[in-house]
């Protein structure tokens, strides 16, 4: 009997070894992935019950955690909520956080690896753990000016610093109040969220980085860059100047905006075509350049690439395998070319910065609870997109466009503004998408800007970039230049 008992004892031992192993696997090896699971409400509660770090603009909190006498211990509050919502996002009690609350959750809640020793320290001293604060690059003057200038229009304004890639303003309209989504009441949060989601104007979308529209004529900057960098063209290269242009392999025709030829004469230069924003010479240029040259340049600018600022930015797109008709249309930003406002601001900023593209960035530094910097974000060069000469040439063409061309409404007395407008067609009967992108002052660029107005600015198919988008850019640039 004892021989059998010994064997049964071994079986019992094995059973317990299995339990010791399984608990170890779950509590040690799988713990991180289980904690990161989006369905894990414990993680969410935790991120609430530490004093979450603040998000700061010029030293003032736009998001901060205030002590409150309930289970969550702290109430997340957003001052000036709608203005900064595209930057902060929100952290609800019953769902996943968005915006910087999501992208820097580890730092804000004090669980990132950089804060490991702080955590140990607070464990030993018995003090409550605190998250790190995040200082963003936003300039409150630029942000407020952009918010005011956009008025009631649906769209977005992005302002960046060409030399550093720092994002100074990032506005998306219509906005929403993140405070409604952080109340400590599941039902109210759900109700607010549902009504925002079902809103046709999609207020929860951060249009600056996640709204993809056809760029229209602002894309001509990319095509002209490709032309000049190819070495085969100069600003004075000429193209036939008809009033209508038959697309190759198609019955459709292209006209210039406003009809007629591009300026006078039988031929037209690239410089004139860009200044007056004509479509037909660009279509002809695009056909001569070919799909690959345009796409290579677009990709150098950042099209077809993911990046994070550290918010995730949607990929702007220059499509593959175009036929000749589509190639001609893509040369003025139509067919399936798509861009975010941030991407177009980066195009302008690159031209402004002598052809060198800086990585766009929203965060200056991360500060420990005692305000010592944990991590600083230095300006980072992405790549040289074009030569300094090409950049200077295009800058001059853009200055001409504002002085004496299609972008005249962005003119500011006493300052040379470089700019380019865009009026993009959507589906046949849908309202236009209106654009402006540029920078100022042209000789020493401090601010690059892009303005997106969706839904035709309420004017259906009668609005155009110079009418609605350019004045917005003008007001924002005036505000920041007069600071």
């Amino acid at each position: 009997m004892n021989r059998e008992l010994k064997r049964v004892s071994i079986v019992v031992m094995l059973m317990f070894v299995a339990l010791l192993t399984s608990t170890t696997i779950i509590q040690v090896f799988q713990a991180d992935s289980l904690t990161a699971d989006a369905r894990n409400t414990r993680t969410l509660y935790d991120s609430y019950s530490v004093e979450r770090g603040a998000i700061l603009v010029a030293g003032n909190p736009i998001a901060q955690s205030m002590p409150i006498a309930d289970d969550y211990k702290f109430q997340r509050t957003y001052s000036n909520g709608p203005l900064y919502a595209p930057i902060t996002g929100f952290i609800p009690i019953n769902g996943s956080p968005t915006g910087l609350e999501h992208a820097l959750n580890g730092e804000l809640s004090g669980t990132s690896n950089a804060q490991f020793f702080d955590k140990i320290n607070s464990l030993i001293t018995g003090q409550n753990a605190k998250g790190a604060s995040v200082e963003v690059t936003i300039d409150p003057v630029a942000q407020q000016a952009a918010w005011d200038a956009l008025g009631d229009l649906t769209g977005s304004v992005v302002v960046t610093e060409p030399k550093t890639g720092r994002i100074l303003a990032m506005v998306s309209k219509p906005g929403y109040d993140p405070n409604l989504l952080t109340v400590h009441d599941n039902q109210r949060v759900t109700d607010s969220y549902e009504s925002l989601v079902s809103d046709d104007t999609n207020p929860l979308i951060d249009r600056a980085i996640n709204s993809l529209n056809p760029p229209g004529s602002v894309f001509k900057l990319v095509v002209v860059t490709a032309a000049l960098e190819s070495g085969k063209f100069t600003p004075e290269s000429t193209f036939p100047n008809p009033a209508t242009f038959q697309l190759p392999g198609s019955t459709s025709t292209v006209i210039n905006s406003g009809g007629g030829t591009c300026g006078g004469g039988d031929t037209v230069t690239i410089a004139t075509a860009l200044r007056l924003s004509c479509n037909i010479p660009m279509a002809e240029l695009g056909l001569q350049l070919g799909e690959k040259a345009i796409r290579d340049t677009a990709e150098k600018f950042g099209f077809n690439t993911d990046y994070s600022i550290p918010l995730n930015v949607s990929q702007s797109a220059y499509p593959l395998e175009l036929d000749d008709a589509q190639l001609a249309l893509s040369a003025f930003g139509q067919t399936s070319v798509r861009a975010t406002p941030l991407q177009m601001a980066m195009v302008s900023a690159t031209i402004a910065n002598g052809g060198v593209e800086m990585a766009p960035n929203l965060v200056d530094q991360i500060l420990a609870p005692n305000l010592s910097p944990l991590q600083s974000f230095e300006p980072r060069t992405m790549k040289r997109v074009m030569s300094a000469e090409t950049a200077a040439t295009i800058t001059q063409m853009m200055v001409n466009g504002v002085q004496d061309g299609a972008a005249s409404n962005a003119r500011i007395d006493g300052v040379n503004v470089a700019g380019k407008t865009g009026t993009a067609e959507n589906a046949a009967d849908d309202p236009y998408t209106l654009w402006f992108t540029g920078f100022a002052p042209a000789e020493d660029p401090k601010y690059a800007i892009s303005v997106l107005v969706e839904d035709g600015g309420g004017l259906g198919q009668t609005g155009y970039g110079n009418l609605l988008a350019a004045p917005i850019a003008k007001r924002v640039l005036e505000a920041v230049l007069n600071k």
Partner: protein
Amino acid sequence: MMPPSNSRGTATDTAQRPQGAKPGRVRRLHLPQKLRNLELFLLLIACGINAASVVLVQLGALGRIDTTLVLLGAGLSVLVLCLHVVLRVVARDADPFILPIASLLNGIGIAMIYRIDIANNDAGWESAAVRQTVWSALAIACGIAVVLVIRNHRVLFRYTYVAGFIAVVLLLLPLVPGLGREVSGARVWIGIGSFATFQPGEIAKIALAVFFAGYLVRNRDSLSMVGKRLLGMRFPRLRDLGPILVVWALSMSVIIFQRDLGTALLYFGLFLVMLYVATGRLSWVLLGMTLFLGGALIASQTLQYVNGRFTNWLDALNPDVYGASGGSYQLVQGLFGLAKGGLIGTGLGQGRPDITPVPQSDYIIASLGEELGLAGLFAILALYLLFVARGFRIGFAGNDDFGKLLGVGLSFVVALQCFIVIGGVTRVIPLTGLTTPFLAAGGSSLVANWIIAALLLRLSDTLRNQPRLVV
């Protein structure tokens, strides 16, 4: 009752062996007071830990200490000390580890149940911890009664078939219309009116262990000696298959009619192990496992709830399974809790075990894992292992086959129950609803497990108390 001054420590064992000696002399040489003093010492430590747990729960979850402590901490301590005193009188040679381990597990369980009460804002009779304490009192009283009434375990041998009959009746009770209650799908409860609910199956496992031990001792010759040899193993005759088929049918009917996979596995596992220990024939185990796995496989194909358990087990994190009704939500919440606990846990009262459904009964081990961490779970598993080992010791050292078998059966049933429920929570096996012995909220389980503890105490006392040549 004074210890003899001339004899101490390890000298006692060697002194006794060559002499064999008269019973009276041996008893004195065993130094029963020393065993009981060790028990008292361990018991005081256990009560200290229990009290500290309740205080920590209050500090962690409430931020203050309140008077519930007196009821919860002191109440249990007084009761186990009563049992200790009884042992000093009627079972002086009983194993000194069983009572402290059971008390400690019981106390930690109450602390955790109390912690969940705080999270749910339950107080008074709503409070599961108060009810658990009252049940503990009742359970320990039953334990005292067992130790007092059963002065020699061989009495039970006489009631082998009565025990078998009682087991079957207890098992069938929940199926009686008007008496049976269905809780979360399983029909294993009985209740009178809306008040007392009880799981008779918990008591049935003790009756079954007694019955199996008695039956196997009587019949093991025919079960082990006769049969055909096949593939190097001796397989039993067809007519000897009766008992195993009956127990198998019983287990299967528990699966089908009471919808309780865990209990069926528990009974059948218990029977197989006792059968193996009694007969020494591996062929029985193979035969039994084939029967059970075959039955379970058919059940998983035909019975919706069994099938669901398997899906939840194998594919717990799949969003479809997670979101399904009766899906893996609970299992995954338990895993989240365990993950939250990590190595050292959040500290008592500082986690959020209440997020997981039924955190005080089926999932108490996940709750403890969250707040005490891997370190705490290892300690709890070690306590169970030690408890089972003390039971097996009776099996190894006993000199009557009935006592040996009973000791092994009772301790194995505790081990198997731990494995089934903790293994279910930690995804070693599919999750089934069973209580964690001593820890989980539930009166029937407490009563059953304290009776098991009392029987093991009695068995160990008889074992040491009788003269023998080999220990």
